[in-house]
């Protein structure tokens, strides 16, 4: 990334706001006002352009110094019997400091997108997968199957960057790429090719998706299906899709777990992943889970290397104790098991803590509004705007450096959590 000093125009800026972490943005900065000039979309614009409003910490709604807020948060944590550190929408060093604090305060850690993330993590821990990453997709995909997800809502530039890019390294005719939606119908035209070829849509209700995927996998295994249709889809149509998957040289099956919002969606993800593995007996095929929003990949990565486990790990016994069900902090909060909640949400002012009876400390992006004023609010900087940082992309492989674009004086999550840890 380069800085043009005169106009304060930043080139090749990476976005931490969506899981594909596009890093070709041009950003203009005037004082504290940030504008996405090139390659923006609804998500990156909101992410970069949300203005700073409050910069002062508060205790019970009253403005205090940062030191007072930190000291009050420390007291709450010191007296807590069951603390939770959640939200965890932050960057690498924010996640590191949250882990250190959780270890010291014997807290439970969780991320605000864990519900979706665990639809994938449980599969990784049970049977695994064969996955690919964004640059491979960009250069190799010949058949993209989108399972149960309207991905352009969450990842507006996915098709532009990974499917309808100008050229493939391997001389593939880009226009020959095919897109099939299985389940949800896309809300826009991002999946339409440059020359106007529309994606094929094989629609069904979410509720029928598990069965549809099971039938598709069974067909690929050469099993005979008695029914004529499943979830309103003719089995012959699924048989054709199975055939295309077998013929394809590098198919990619993608899903956004947040959109597979039905009970035990992990079983469907598992069926997809096993199907992809089985396809690799003859040809190449890969899964591509799309997620990584609000730092969820980063939080899970750091937790995995520091504790050995992903989110939903509890340190109350002095060592990491992983339980994806008991340590689901939404459940814990709803069941009044938590007395103190530290909520970290530095990317999105709308990601506020879930309502609960716990004493609540929020490290939030400036401008956050609350239905219920937290006990402590500390406005923190946004990684990649107010301070430097690093963030993982959806594929858990690539991480991008985040730059400090302005001098807002807002502290980083790392600074605040580290200060709490030190004074604890």
């Amino acid at each position, binding site marked *: *990334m*380069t800085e043009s000093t005169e106009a304060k125009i930043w080139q*090749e800026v*990476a976005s931490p706001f969506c899981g*594909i972490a*596009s*890093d070709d943005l041009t950003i203009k900065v005037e004082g504290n006002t940030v504008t996405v000039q090139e390659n923006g979309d609804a998500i990156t614009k909101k992410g970069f352009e949300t203005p700073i409003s409050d910069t002062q910490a508060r205790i019970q709604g009253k403005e205090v110094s940062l030191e007072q807020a930190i000291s009050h948060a420390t007291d709450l944590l010191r007296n807590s019997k069951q603390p939770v550190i959640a939200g965890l929408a932050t960057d690498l*060093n924010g996640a*590191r400091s949250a882990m*250190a604090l959780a*270890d*010291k305060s014997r807290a439970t850690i969780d991320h605000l997108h864990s519900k979706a993330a665990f639809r994938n993590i449980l599969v*990784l*821990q049970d*049977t*695994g997968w*064969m*996955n*690919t*990453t*964004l*640059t*491979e997709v*960009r*250069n*190799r995909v010949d058949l993209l199957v989108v399972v149960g997800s309207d991905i352009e809502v969450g990842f507006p530039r996915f098709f532009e960057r990974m499917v309808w890019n*100008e*050229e*493939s*390294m391997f001389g593939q005719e880009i226009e020959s790429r095919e897109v099939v939606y299985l389940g949800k119908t896309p809300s826009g035209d991002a999946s339409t090719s440059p020359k106007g070829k529309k994606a094929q849509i094989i629609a069904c209700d979410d509720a029928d998706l598990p069965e549809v995927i099971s039938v598709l996998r069974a067909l690929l295994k050469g099993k005979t299906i008695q029914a004529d249709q499943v979830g309103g889809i003719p089995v012959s149509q699924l048989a054709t899709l199975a055939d295309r998957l077998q013929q394809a*040289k*590098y198919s990619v099956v993608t899903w956004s777990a947040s959109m597979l919002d039905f009970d035990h969606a992990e079983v469907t993800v598992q069926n997809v992943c096993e199907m992809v593995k089985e396809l*690799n007996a003859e*040809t*190449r095929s*890969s899964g591509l889970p799309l997620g990584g929003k609000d730092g969820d990949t980063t939080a*899970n*990565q750091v937790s*995995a*290397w*520091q*504790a*050995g*486990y992903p989110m939903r790990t509890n*340190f109350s*016994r*002095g*060592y*990491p*104790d*992983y339980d994806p069900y008991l340590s689901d902090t939404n459940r814990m909060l709803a069941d009044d098991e938590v007395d103190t909640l530290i909520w970290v949400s530095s990317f999105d002012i709308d990601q506020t803590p879930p309502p609960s009876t716990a004493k609540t400390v929020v490290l939030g992006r400036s401008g956050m509004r609350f239905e219920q004023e937290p006990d402590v609010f500390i406005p923190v900087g946004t990684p990649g705007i107010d301070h430097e940082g*690093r963030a*993982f992309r959806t594929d*858990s*492989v*690539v*991480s*991008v*450096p985040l730059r400090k674009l302005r001098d807002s004086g807002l502290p980083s999550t*790392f600074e605040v959590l580290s200060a709490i840890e030190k004074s604890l």
Partner: protein
Amino acid sequence: MLTKLTGGRVYDPAHGIDGKVQDIYIRDGRIVDAPTDGKINEEIDLRGKVVMAGAIDMHTHIGGGKVNIARTMLPEDHAADVVARTELMRSGCGHAAPSTLTAGYRYAEMGYTAGFEPAILPINARQAHMEMHDTPIIDKGGYVMLGSDDFLLRMMAANNDQESINNYVAWTMTHSQAIGVKVVNPGGINAFKFNQRKLDLDEQNKYYGVTPRDILMRLAQAVNELGVPHPLHVHGCNLGVPGNLGTTIDTMEGINGLPMHMTHIQFHSYGTEGDFKFSSGAAEIAESINKNKNITVDVGQILFGQTVTASGDNMRQFAGSPHSHPNKWVCMDIECDAGCGVVPFKYKDQSYVNALQWMIGLEVFLMVDDPWRIFLTTDHPNGAPFTSYPHLIRLLMDKTFRNDVLSTLHPEAQKASHLASLEREYSLYEIAIMTRAGAAKLVGLADRGHLGVGGAADITVYTDHVDREKMFSKPDYVFKDGTMVVKDGELINVTWGTTHVVKPDYDISIEKALKPYFDRYHTQKMGNFKMSNDEIVDDGRGSLTIQPLHKGGAL
């Protein structure tokens, strides 16, 4: 502050010192001369003790994407070895894929003061260094993986000259903060993306027409011409395939005398004789190593029990996935750069194949003559977790113990090996070569692995116990950069080691080709791919140590 370590029996092969009683002086983290005025602030009595430099693990998977997949994937393995927080130490977990913090503590407790991650994908370098940054006490560094990356293969297919390849290699090393270059299943990871399922030494990549032999030659030459001290680090073709010994020997002898390091050679030393069509090729492999002085190897010894295999070699890991235990595994294609495969595995002493793998590793250890050219590894965690090193050292130093273990293994495998007849027992001096002096020389660490004046005060002190496993499990003292970090086998201080790199020169014109390559084909910009020196320093705890290149490039 001057500390005197008095009267220890010193094993310092870098200076030819083999068990001589002598004093060592430490000041400001370095080994210094005896003070002329005789003034000493602190004296530690080491009479009767064994003193060596801190041990160096030259090949251990401690950081990066595939290691973290292994961690996330194995909650049940961690559960049996969770580690509670103490006043001094963070909590974590151990066994096959330990947390970074626990890994650092345990290495130090075993007398190790450095570990090198052997498979840093350029595109994942940032993560590998983040993890190593969170690994306390030990120094670290890594070898960057090339050979299946499309940029190199495109250059080779276009017949670019060696100089431009040298530039690309140096550029990649610099911006991924590496100290060496590794190649894994040369070109095979790439070929797998084109649905090739095997790639022998002279087999062509379907798309590029390039062979593994070409890739090895180009990269070995680049590393040599750039003056990088660590020779090209090679994970060869056909890992784990019965009968691969021929390819392995061909690989070693075909490199035309260029320096080359063959890693986890045990996995590449298999014949096809006998009823099981699986036999030991250790004798032929050792003979070739003994003959070809340009070759170094580490063994990748397997030890029995549950572990996890994590490799860049997705072609071979996919082939091995039916053997996963427990039954779960991951393979990934990665960023037109590389790939990975993570397959949990349990080595069983009553399995013919596993028992023979154990014997093959030990045979190689015992039949390679020169301890300066063979290194003690389990390819952590692929053959076994690094915490089993003291056990492995005992197997090497104690023939009776070795043969006692051998006699309990699969009976048919025992008949297929002449391990029982090998008399050799490693000496303390030879262990110090393999794990200190030789390792430092191989990695290219000028100031580590020895106890001479000017060297870093990374020092391990042992009690000379006849049970070598006991001896090497619990050092009396470990000093890291002069600070006592371990006393009586217990951690007493937590420090943070440095990251060792080299910075070979390159012509910036290589970016004229790289920038448009990133713009057109990649999903990350070239500028954001580069890992800065500041990222190693990070929150202030990290530091960068630039090791010297061999003078004038070529050796």
